[in-house]
């Protein structure tokens, strides 16, 4: 009987948390869709989440493409199908690896900082100070992060894809001797707009997911330095897992 009660309490706790997260997202979208929009804050967040993540996206994109080129070549070589290296690298990046890896990189670099920044503002009463100036903390802090996530993650994913395709080209064509025309020609034959749009939709939703979870965790942080540290860790873990879970559902819906 006691274990049933505990299970019920746990379920209620989970439901309450899910409800609070849902309300947090709903409130953010409500303020995002109603003026005024804090343009200066939005540009600052786009610079932070987007521009400052380009180097890490460049590096991970290049090496992901290169390793795909290498592994793909040796696998396809067994069947004498090296000509399909281009489509293999391109499709893997555009449909799956580009959106997912770019989102995971943004989570690690910018999502953790988002949670920590909001968390520190919460424990040092800076969020209360904002509210007491007659400024809505959602409009001022959370909405710019959500919009910046939705704008920048697809752009970063596009950079990841392009750099990755050139990484695969470097290894497949320059190092292992696949024909340049074959690499790009077959890629153009096999990748259509639906694949590219599918990747775009995924990255859009990942951008919103990262900003939502990381901002939420920071906003409802625990007490003191330990609370912020826990909130930051939870934000990164929950965002990363959610990206992979959501990716499965998006894939099953889109492709």
């Amino acid at each position, binding site marked *: 009987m006691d274990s049933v009660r505990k299970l019920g309490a746990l379920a209620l706790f989970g439901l309450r948390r899910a409800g609070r997260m849902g309300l947090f997202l709903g409130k953010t979208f409500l303020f995002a869709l109603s003026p005024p929009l804090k343009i200066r804050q939005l540009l600052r967040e786009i610079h932070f989440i987007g521009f400052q993540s380009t180097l890490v996206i460049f590096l991970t994109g290049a090496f992901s493409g290169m390793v795909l080129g290498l592994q793909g070549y040796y696998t396809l070589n067994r069947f004498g199908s090296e000509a399909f290296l281009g489509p293999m690298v391109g499709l893997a990046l555009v449909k799956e690896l580009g959106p997912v890896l770019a989102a995971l990189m943004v989570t690690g670099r910018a999502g953790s900082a988002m949670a920590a920044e909001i968390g*520190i503002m919460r424990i*040092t009463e800076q969020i209360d*100070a904002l*509210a*007491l*100036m*007659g400024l809505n903390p959602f409009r001022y802090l959370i909405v710019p992060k959500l919009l910046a996530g939705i704008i920048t993650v697809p752009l970063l994913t596009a950079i990841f894809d392009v750099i990755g395709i050139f990484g695969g080209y470097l290894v497949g064509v320059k190092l292992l001797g696949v024909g340049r025309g074959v690499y790009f020609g077959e890629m153009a034959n096999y990748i259509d707009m639906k694949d590219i749009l599918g990747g775009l939709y995924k990255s859009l939703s990942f951008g919103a997911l990262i900003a939502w979870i990381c901002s939420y965790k920071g906003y409802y942080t625990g007490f003191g330095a330990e609370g912020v540290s826990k909130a930051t860790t939870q934000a990164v873990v929950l965002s990363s897992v959610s990206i992979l879970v959501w990716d499965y559902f998006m894939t099953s819906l889109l492709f």
Partner: protein
Amino acid sequence: MIRIENLHKSFDGLKVLQDVSFEVGKGEILALIGGSGSGKSVLLKHIARLMRPERGRIFIDGRDLGSLKGKELEEVRSRLGFIFQGGALFDSLTVYENVAFPLREKTELSENEIREKVLNELDQVGLKAAENKYPAQISGGMAKRVSLARSLVRNPEIMLIDEPTTGLDPVTSHQILTLIDSCHKRLGFTGIIVTHALIKVFEIVQKVAMLHEGKILAVGTPDEILSSTDPVVQEFVTFSFECPFPIPDYISSRRGTALRQITSGKGKRGIL
């Protein structure tokens, strides 16, 4: 101006505020005194509606704070200035930017007008030279003064001041309270100040409320509180004004040079 009626609040079953009621008239400053953990800061946060009571109501200019939403609440809050215990300065902004922030966000003033107002306010609190420093680069006392300047730059009608002297040395504490007094005389705001520095604060306030274990034990003028017969009030006031333990000889023998005799402004009360 501020009226609190039968306020109740508890956290996880622990009663923090019980049936709290008092009033602060326009232009008055009320000192909220009481031991640590008696619910003073919680009460102040209720008045700013950073917390919601379980029961009871708070009125500002006759408007029930609990019934306000959205723009109405923002409008009432924009008339409030709040000085937090830790200052709550935006740590990514300089001292100048912190003070300019509410003007940039809530007014249509030009950058030149903002600069003039901000520098004037920083001058008033004696921090003009620190305008380019970040909060991490200034002392606790300076942070409190910046926080005061940030609140005053908007000409608030109501100031809520939470322990402005906590963690500061006696000289800086005295300076901060003198500064609050001069700002009150200059701007005429209504205020509530939570503090333990009773000697100075009794000089500058018109009313005092004593909070003990979540209940208001006494409300009145400083004179009425000083002559209160309530044993808890008496003990608190006595311990705040007079040294509660024997002064060691090595201190008392040097008292003439090391210590200043302190007066309460309502007659001499203490020796330390």
